[in-house]
């Protein structure tokens, strides 16, 4: 019972790690970046390649899995994405799906279509017994990182002026500029940061979810579910939604395996029909 709860939390956290970058770009910047998964994949491949081909230790690859996609995000933002903020969501969908296709084929071309596997360091493998509950070490590791991320993100967005300037820039970029907000700088920073988060998520998620060129397409739905159910105006919303979905999914599959596949989708539909703006939309 408690083990299931723990697994659910860990799975939820994993969803969150992967989706929080999207919560930033889609949720806060209102940019439908379906290529989010491609940045996550980039992070995953950075970790896999560094570990498998160069023998870099797992932990040491994580910062690079953040920085690499962040720089990639920054470059793409400055050259391409920035032209699309003012465009319709449909344009954004088309564009970012195009990027995904390119990324999928490019990764396939350079690394092949097979799974990339990584070996965790031994101190992250296995599980320990805490008060009678079997706790997986790697899953605990993910929970800790996630917790830290949520707190940090929440502080940045609510306690600094950056957060309100970002939201102002999203609400009305034209007027925000006219009132002295450097919209492009804010967008570029945020986008790079979101991409970095995606990369980190990809690196952390690769162990459990696997990593192959179709990664961005395979998990796109999950990212979107988390962000939509959580609501798009905060970080805590998607965080709580991840937890809820993770626990519901794991518990559903454990207790009623025959309908396990329906749980997450049905939950999503029900939540969205009852609360169209998302479960945890800030009601201030």
């Amino acid at each position, binding site marked *: 019972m408690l083990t299931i709860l723990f697994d659910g939390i860990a799975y939820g956290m994993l969803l969150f790690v992967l989706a929080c970058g999207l919560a930033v770009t889609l949720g806060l910047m209102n940019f439908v970046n379906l290529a989010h998964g491609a940045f996550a994949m980039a992070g995953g491949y950075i970790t896999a390649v560094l570990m498998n081909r160069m023998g870099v230790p797992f932990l040491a690859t994580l910062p690079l899995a953040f920085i690499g996609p962040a720089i990639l995000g920054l470059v793409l933002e400055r050259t391409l994405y920035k032209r699309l903020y003012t465009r319709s969501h449909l344009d954004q969908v088309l564009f970012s799906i195009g990027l995904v296709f390119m990324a999928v084929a490019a990764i396939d071309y350079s690394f092949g279509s097979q799974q990339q596997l990584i070996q965790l360091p031994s101190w992250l493998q296995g599980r320990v017994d805490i008060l009678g509950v079997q706790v997986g070490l790697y899953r605990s590791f993910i929970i800790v990182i996630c917790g830290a991320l949520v707190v940090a993100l929440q502080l940045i967005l609510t306690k600094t*002026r950056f957060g*309100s*300037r970002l*939201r*102002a820039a*999203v*609400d*009305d970029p*034209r*007027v*925000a*500029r*006219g*009132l*002295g*907000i*450097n*919209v492009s700088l804010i967008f570029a920073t945020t986008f790079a940061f979101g991409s970095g988060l995606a990369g980190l998520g990809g690196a952390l998620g690769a162990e459990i979810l696997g990593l192959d060129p179709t990664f961005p397409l395979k998990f796109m739905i999950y990212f979107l579910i988390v962000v939509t159910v959580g609501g798009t*105006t905060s970080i805590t919303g998607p965080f709580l939604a991840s937890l809820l979905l993770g626990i519901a999914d794991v518990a559903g599959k454990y207790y009623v395996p025959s309908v396990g596949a329906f749980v997450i989708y049905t939950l999503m539909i029900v939540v969205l029909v009852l609360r169209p703006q998302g479960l945890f939309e800030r009601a*201030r």
Partner: protein
Amino acid sequence: MSDLLTLQKVSAGYGDAIVISNIDLHLRPGESLAVLGRNGTGKTTLLNTIIGVTRHRSGSIVLDGQNLTTARPDKRAHAGIGWVPQERNIFKSLTVEENLTAVARPGPWNVNRVYDMFPRLRERRSNMGNQLSGGEQQMLAVARALVLNPKLLLLDEPTEGLAPIIIEELLAALTRIIRGEGMSAIVVEQHAQKILGVTDSALILDRGTIVHASSSRALIDDPAALEQHLGVTAKKKPLRAASH
């Protein structure tokens, strides 16, 4: 004394359309200017061009010695322009207070001071931007421009939607700011009578060009010009008589 703002032969518009053309304009520090004209004559476009959110075609814009012709809008704001857009454009997902703090720059006008000017805003400080009444939005738009502590205020129909008593206070405050603190202002207004009492000079736009420029006093005393360009007649008969 040198100009605070100089526009030389400025033309601008949206997309392929040129809306204002060949605008020349000089404004000294502490001077205020009323911009009048019928609907669609380019008043808003003129202000938008000064802040830089239209498509610039030709001419130059200089503020306080700084050439802003091709500068980005945020640079212009930093250079000392505060803008009240016609449609208010309150940031809807920010609270009243965040709307102010997000753009505030150091100077005599801080959040508290604008709250003193519009006590209604203090009461509603934690309302989201999209949960304000029309007049409250207008007050917030003016307050938001003030906390930028600009040298030049661009006000696009700032009195629209405000209660008479607030308009009275706002105009009085504007006069104080301009006279007392040396801020300059360009005010677009529909009510010629109301604004001409406040500003130093006035111009009238028609089809994107300046068709009249003079001191405010001179325009008030020139009912023929008002009638010709704005269609303002001296006194109207009550509407009630119009029915039946």
